[in-house]
């Protein structure tokens, strides 16, 4: 059981790290602001989500697990809001230019 949980943790955290890597590559390589934001939100949502999922068995109880999920939800909320704000500013600048 313990072994299976460890395998699960390694797989989930590795998958999360892959999304962070892909998001970073996208941030560096994509041509404009909107596509770069798109890459960044994948790292925030899926990358952090998978890492949190993988760490849940090691969170030391229900309270620790809830705290981890709370952190993921807060990062998702702020990430989504900031992305929307940057995107709407970009569109305003684009229409003005």
């Amino acid at each position: 059981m313990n072994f299976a949980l460890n395998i699960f943790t390694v797989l989930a955290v590795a998958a999360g790290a892959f999304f962070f890597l892909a998001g970073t590559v996208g941030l560096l390589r994509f041509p404009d602001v909107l596509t770069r934001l798109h890459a960044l939100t994948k790292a925030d949502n899926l990358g952090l989500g998978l890492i949190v999922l993988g760490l849940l068995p090691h969170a030391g109880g229900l309270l620790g697990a809830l705290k981890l999920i709370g952190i993921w939800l807060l990062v998702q909320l702020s990430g989504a809001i900031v992305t929307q704000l940057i995107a709407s500013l970009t569109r305003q600048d684009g229409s003005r230019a």
Partner: protein
Amino acid sequence: MTVALAFDIGLGILLLAVAGWAVAACSTYAATIAFIVYGLLLAIAWVRLFAVDVALTEAAIGSGVTGMLLLSAAARLRVIEPAAVAAGTPLRIAVGISCALISVALAAAILFPPDVVFTLAPAAMAHLPESGLGNPVAGVLFVYRSLDTLLEKAVLLLALLGVWSLAPDRFWGGIPGLQVYRQRNAILIFFAQILPPLGIMVGIYMTWVGADHPGGAFQGGAVLAVMWILVMIAGLRDVPPIGQRWMRLLVVVGPVVFLAIGLAGFALAGAFLGYPAGYAKPFIIVIEVTLQISIAVTLGLLAAGPPERIQPQ
């Protein structure tokens, strides 16, 4: 090499690289972003050194609030910066030499420590239970070195006076020139409605838990201040004019209560800032709660900047 050591070395290299970026960045804005990133990485470094109290302060004050102040300064400078005269080469060399000397002195202190390190830590830990506190950092801040903490709050008040004194005479007592979102933005308003209930709870919790665990009035107050600023920037509440009495009272209530309890120490415990035996904890709680309110309002007003108009827009 263990994973933890590899992580620490990587973090150290990253810190140096980001610090170099902050110095070398060509625009003020890029340098400020580098400074904020540096502060967040530094907070992780403090966690690795098991100094979680310092890490929280670095993230909340060093990176968060200071970063916000620097960003607003960079935005103001954008207009006049192209015309500014760059510092001359002799001045740059002098600054570089001073920084190098400080670095060398710090490195020497760490690389060649004295044979016998003088420490008060065992004595501090031995008497900590008498204060009713469980967190030695809180013990140092509010019992052993409470004079430093009191003066720290006085410095914060002086900083606010410094910002306010930049106001032109005709705007004295007016409304700070915080940059609010001009068009009412539905997304930002949603954020400013959903986050503060959570943020206020977290801020109060950080202060309360600071007695026994990492946290405290300064970190909690910074979180409260940021929630207030978010509400003001979204346009949900107006920025209050600095002449308002209730706001000035909130700014000074913490330091005044701290000073009053300190003076009462002469009568009750025979020393300035002494607490009567057995009653240290309740007095410290009163000080922390009022300090948190004052810190939150002061940091919010610092971010709001000097008054720039009399009439609301």
